[in-house]
């Protein structure tokens, strides 16, 4: 059973060792731990599911473990180059790595642990460990964004804590292994699930509670924005999925569908008026989370599509944020109208951003396209053509809004000399974008893992 805790152990060891005052030791330890976490997550993929009072690892947990570990690795590597460009950092480098490792540790813990109460604890711990990372740039806007993040998300999570207490009241247990085998119905449980959707939905960027998200993504350092978009929000979605697994009442799933459509629609419309590159990608994340939650609410093929989209979006969006960091280090602004001719001034960054933005907006042949297509098919099957057209139209609006802006900053007339970032700064986003494409090869494996997973 201990082998399932290996990724957590890696992140915990890196957290402890990264505070040792030896030059570059924090970087070496963090990258090594992340590599070991990826290796152990791949190993866990081939092991049977694990159910005990402490650990609950099924197909969904395995997918989450691997996704978190891979993005942990790319983020720690990218941070090495990114931190050189932060002029007045709030934190010392080793404290940055300490918090980054603890942040990942709490996410890995939340997708592995068996107790619903401890899942809540781990999700709340992600707030504690990541709040100071958001304020790394040490300016008033970043600090304000960090404060909004702490107060809004913590308050939202109190609602999900209430949901856990009601779940206990209705079922007499919070253990996932036990809850999986009992079908509990009744209004109290439906109320608990609805509160869990709203509470964890605050962290997942669900309508109307997403207000903290654009501020945080827009002002956090790029590697942290990447972690938030790619894995933190999916961890909150994971908690919602687990709650839905307990409820037999269709009400909470319908509520999730409606909120998912509202989230997708609102984000798609707001995307059309965005002027800041990172805020635009933040709204794109909200749009994708809305689509994922629609898929989760439908179950079956929709849920498989949601997980495919979750993984592919994670890789693509992390690439988009890394590349935004590259552009910020060169242009010193995220204002779209001030960033011009990136394909000439930073050709590798520019072309990778072109493909990454296609990937985040669901263009073929990326995994996001496959996921969105499966979700749209499920919407059509469940709610008919009108609902499918509405969801498809919102996705299309988001696609046009993101790609029109990225095309504008890439292929406009260039000013200034050609100066690309170092090889680490351009290689990591390329790998992440390729991974987003590579997800399509694993769709059958994802389907196999997801079928029978608790909550899907």
């Amino acid at each position, binding site marked *: 059973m201990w082998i399932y805790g290996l990724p957590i152990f890696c992140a915990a060891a890196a957290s402890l060792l990264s505070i040792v005052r030896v030059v570059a030791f924090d970087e070496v330890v963090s990258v090594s731990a992340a590599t070991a976490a990826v290796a152990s997550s791949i190993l866990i993929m081939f092991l049977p599911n694990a159910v005990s009072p402490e650990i609950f690892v099924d197909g969904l947990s395995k997918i989450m473990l691997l996704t978190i570990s891979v993005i942990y690795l790319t983020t720690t590597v990218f941070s090495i180059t990114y931190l050189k460009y932060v002029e007045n950092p709030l934190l010392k480098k080793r404290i940055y790595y300490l918090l980054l490792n603890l942040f990942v540790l709490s996410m890995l813990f939340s997708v592995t642990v068996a107790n619903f109460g*401890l899942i809540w604890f781990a999700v709340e711990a992600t707030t504690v460990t990541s709040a100071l990372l958001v304020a790394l740039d040490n300016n008033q806007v970043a*600090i304000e964004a*960090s404060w909004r993040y702490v107060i809004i998300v913590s308050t939202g999570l109190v609602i999900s804590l209430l949901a856990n207490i009601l779940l206990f009241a209705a079922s007499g247990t919070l253990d996932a292994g036990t809850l999986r085998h009992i079908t509990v119905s009744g209004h109290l449980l439906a109320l608990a699930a609805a509160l869990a959707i709203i509470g964890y939905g605050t962290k997942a960027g669900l309508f109307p509670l997403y207000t903290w998200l654009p501020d945080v993504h827009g002002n956090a350092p790029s590697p942290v924005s990447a972690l938030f978009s790619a894995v933190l929000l999916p961890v909150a979605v994971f908690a919602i999925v687990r709650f839905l697994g307990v409820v037999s009442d269709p009400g909470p799933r319908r509520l999730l569908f409606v909120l998912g459509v509202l989230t997708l629609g609102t984000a798609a419309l707001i995307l059309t008026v965005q002027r800041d590159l990172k805020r635009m990608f933040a709204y794109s994340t909200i749009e994708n989370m809305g689509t994922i939650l629609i898929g989760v609410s439908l179950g079956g093929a929709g849920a498989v599509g949601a997980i495919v989209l979750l993984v592919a979006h994670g890789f693509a969006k992390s690439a988009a944020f890394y590349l935004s960091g590259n552009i910020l280090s060169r242009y010193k602004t995220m204002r779209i109208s001030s960033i011009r001719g990136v394909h000439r001034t930073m050709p590798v960054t520019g072309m990778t951003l072109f493909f990454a933005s296609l990937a985040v907006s669901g263009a073929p042949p990326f995994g996001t396209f496959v996921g969105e297509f499966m979700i749209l098919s499920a919407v059509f099957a469940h709610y008919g053509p009108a609902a499918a057209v509405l969801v498809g139209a919102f996705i299309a609006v988001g696609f046009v809004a993101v790609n029109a802006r990225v095309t504008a900053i890439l292929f406009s007339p260039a000013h200034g000399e050609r100066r690309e970032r170092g090889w680490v700064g351009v290689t990591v986003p390329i790998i992440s974008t390729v991974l987003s494409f590579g997800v399509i090869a694993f769709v059958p494996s994802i389907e196999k893992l997801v079928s029978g997973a608790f909550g899907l």
Partner: protein
Amino acid sequence: MSATYSITGFIIIVLGLFLQWQVYVSRIVFTFAASSIVIAVWFAYQGIVTDSYSPIVLAVLTAGVRGTLIPILIVRNLHVTPWRARENNPVMGTASSIVLSLVLVIFSLWLFRWSIGRYVGATGVYAALPFAMLFQGAFLIISRRNAFIQMVGYLELENGVLLLGAWGFPQLPLLIEAAIVLDLLGVVVVARIIMRMREESLSIDDRAVAEAALSEDMRG
């Protein structure tokens, strides 16, 4: 047991309302501390009556972390920035805050009866107490702009959930409740750091206005 809970409930409701009409952060923090201590005493009493160690552990954690450590952390921060020690620009006036908070107590009673009460077999006035605390905390966050007071609002919210868990469902594992208390400490420590940075990044003009308001208030 129900008589002691009724007394506890009455004190907590009064303290919750008292929170709403205060403008000085230190008084709000001390009121919150008193409320936490009252809850801790009730936990301890419950542990003694039922001869169970879990409520005693929870009582010690609540009194230590919520009733003592967190208030000390916040008040120490106030000594660093005394000019932020009062709410100068609340979203809502004191009179309307009091009226609305009373309405919220009644609303929370109705909501509890309508939503959870009938399923858990508890519909009395004091059964709705944790719900009332939840709403009081949320209202404090919404009605004030001062970061310290918003933090106390969040803590009051969590006190409501803790009380709901301990009173309504005493079989809830101690591990979960202890995790809630300790997690809260983490949130407060991080929030304190961010609050301090917020104060430091605030412009000098803002400070002058706040300091003038404070000295004016002390004179009057």
